């Protein structure tokens, strides 16, 4: 169905990611909201609705949207919190986008937010392990988030000969680029040896194959076509969003070498935006674990199934390669504050398309970038195509 109106990102904000014991939920969100409002050059009173993407459960507030809005003085707006696990941020952007595309609003705010370090680490591990089918996969078997992705890593290694070293290479790339991103949680380069010798979390995945627990926020202001043109010379247009999902029980998946939700969501997004993977200048892919990035290359159509490790090894997803991926450090090293991640990805691609990414700026030729945001273990998938040109 054709949407009524186009919408563009006209303001971006991003907090420092990391262990943020210096701020509470409202204060953390405010860091991004203030930047986004100022970047858009609007008065906050012009914001007609606020969607907060946050999985929640690990911080003290039960109603994050109203807490965030009160702190930022956004009382009276239409608001809600949305949940799509680790894709909650993209879900929030989609909600804001639809409010504009439908004609309901001219200016909408999407905020991605998570505080994951207010509870102890193993409680966070537990909350993420329950993200699937509680009764059939957690109650008796204690699955964890790394364990779910490890099932995919083992199957991928068996079927395609992917090695632990191939996985480690993803982490090395992520830390390399994070060292160029001052907002990233990790600022130091690592080596393949360091990854391989780190503690096994859920074999074959090790500590350095996994994203960290992160506190962080990100925000984007979206505007309708007319308003966007008045506000900025560099709007970033949302050209197509594809959404899909898959079974709660991992036992119901057809295979463990890819995420069907990514394949489906990306094909929908490409069709709506009328692009192919070859038209993209840059992408953020959902690399919550190293294996996830390799599968994403394949499922998004950047290479054939089973050739993800080779694409990386050949340098094609590095800066200067065919399709640079996660040059902001990715979830793996920038950090993964679950609900903030999707919005953080939108901020990163917006910076790239505006030419404002600083040390990790890639050359922009076609003016298009991709946001790939997975919730859970392929339970949800949101793929968004952003464009410099309308």
């Amino acid at each position, binding site marked *: 169905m054709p949407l009524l109106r186009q919408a563009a990102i006209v303001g971006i904000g991003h907090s420092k990611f990391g262990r943020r014991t*210096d701020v509470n939920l409202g204060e953390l969100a405010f860091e991004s909201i203030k930047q986004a409002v100022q970047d858009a050059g609007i008065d906050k009173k012009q914001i007609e609705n606020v969607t907060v993407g946050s999985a929640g459960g690990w911080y003290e507030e039960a109603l994050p949207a109203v807490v965030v809005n009160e702190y930022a003085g956004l009382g009276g707006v239409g608001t809600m919190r949305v949940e799509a696990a680790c894709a909650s941020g993209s879900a929030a952007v989609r909600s804001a986008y639809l409010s504009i595309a439908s004609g309901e609003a001219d200016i909408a705010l999407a905020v991605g937010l998570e505080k994951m370090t207010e509870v102890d680490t*193993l409680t966070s591990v537990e909350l993420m392990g329950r993200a699937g089918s*509680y009764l059939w996969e957690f109650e*008796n078997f*204690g699955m964890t988030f790394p364990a779910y992705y490890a099932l995919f890593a083992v199957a991928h290694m068996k079927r395609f000969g992917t090695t632990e070293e191939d996985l480690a290479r993803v982490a090395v790339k992520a830390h390399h680029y994070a060292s160029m991103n001052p907002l990233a949680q990790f600022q130091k380069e690592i080596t393949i040896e360091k990854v391989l010798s780190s*503690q096994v979390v859920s074999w074959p995945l090790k500590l350095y194959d996994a994203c960290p627990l992160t506190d962080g926020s990100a925000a984007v202001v979206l505007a309708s076509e007319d308003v966007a043109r008045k506000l900025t010379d560099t709007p970033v247009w949302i050209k197509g969003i594809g959404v899909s999902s898959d079974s709660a029980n991992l036992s119901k998946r057809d295979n*463990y070498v890819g995420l069907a939700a990514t394949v489906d969501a990306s094909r929908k997004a490409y069709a709506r935006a009328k692009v192919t993977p070859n038209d993209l200048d840059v992408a953020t892919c959902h690399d919550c674990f190293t294996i996830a990035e390799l599968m994403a290359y394949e499922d998004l159509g950047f290479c054939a199934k089973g050739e993800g490790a080779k694409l990386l090894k050949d340098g094609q997803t590095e800066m200067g390669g065919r399709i640079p991926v996660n040059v902001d450090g990715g979830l793996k090293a920038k950090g993964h504050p679950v609900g903030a991640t999707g919005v953080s990805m939108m901020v990163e691609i917006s910076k790239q398309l505006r030419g404002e990414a600083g040390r990790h700026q890639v050359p922009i030729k076609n003016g298009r970038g991709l946001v790939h945001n997975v919730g859970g273990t392929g339970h949800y998938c949101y793929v968004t195509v952003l464009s410099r040109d309308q």
Partner: protein
Amino acid sequence: MTMDSEPPTLHSRRTLSLRFNVPISKTNRFWQSLKEGKFVTTKCTDCGELSFPPQADCPRCMGGNVEWVDMGTEAELVTFTHVQVTPTSFVQSDPYFVGVGRLGQGLKVLAWIEGATLEKLVPGMKLRLEARSGEDGSSYYVFVQT
């Protein structure tokens, strides 16, 4: 934010412990059979869809007529992992192996693999489902190597 010393936080005094009463009335046949060491699941009598986990309503045709059928216990290992960092409610457990096994009729089941070692596990190997009961009388199931 990297800091030399941790900023002050207020450690909440109010704690919350959650235990859920999970309804199982519509799939109780599975849990009752498990106590007898048998594995059954649901099959739609209208469209023939076989489901695991069992469910009282058919996810394919949305019909409400399901029968309970034998699942079989012979399985082939599809994939596995060794969980070494366990969640907080499993801290008493030693690290455990979890596998996905494919049963004869194509159903897949996720469960612990008992008595496994990394060296011995290979996708494609034969496994068998067996019932177990916990110290508290609860029933669960595991894969064993055949």
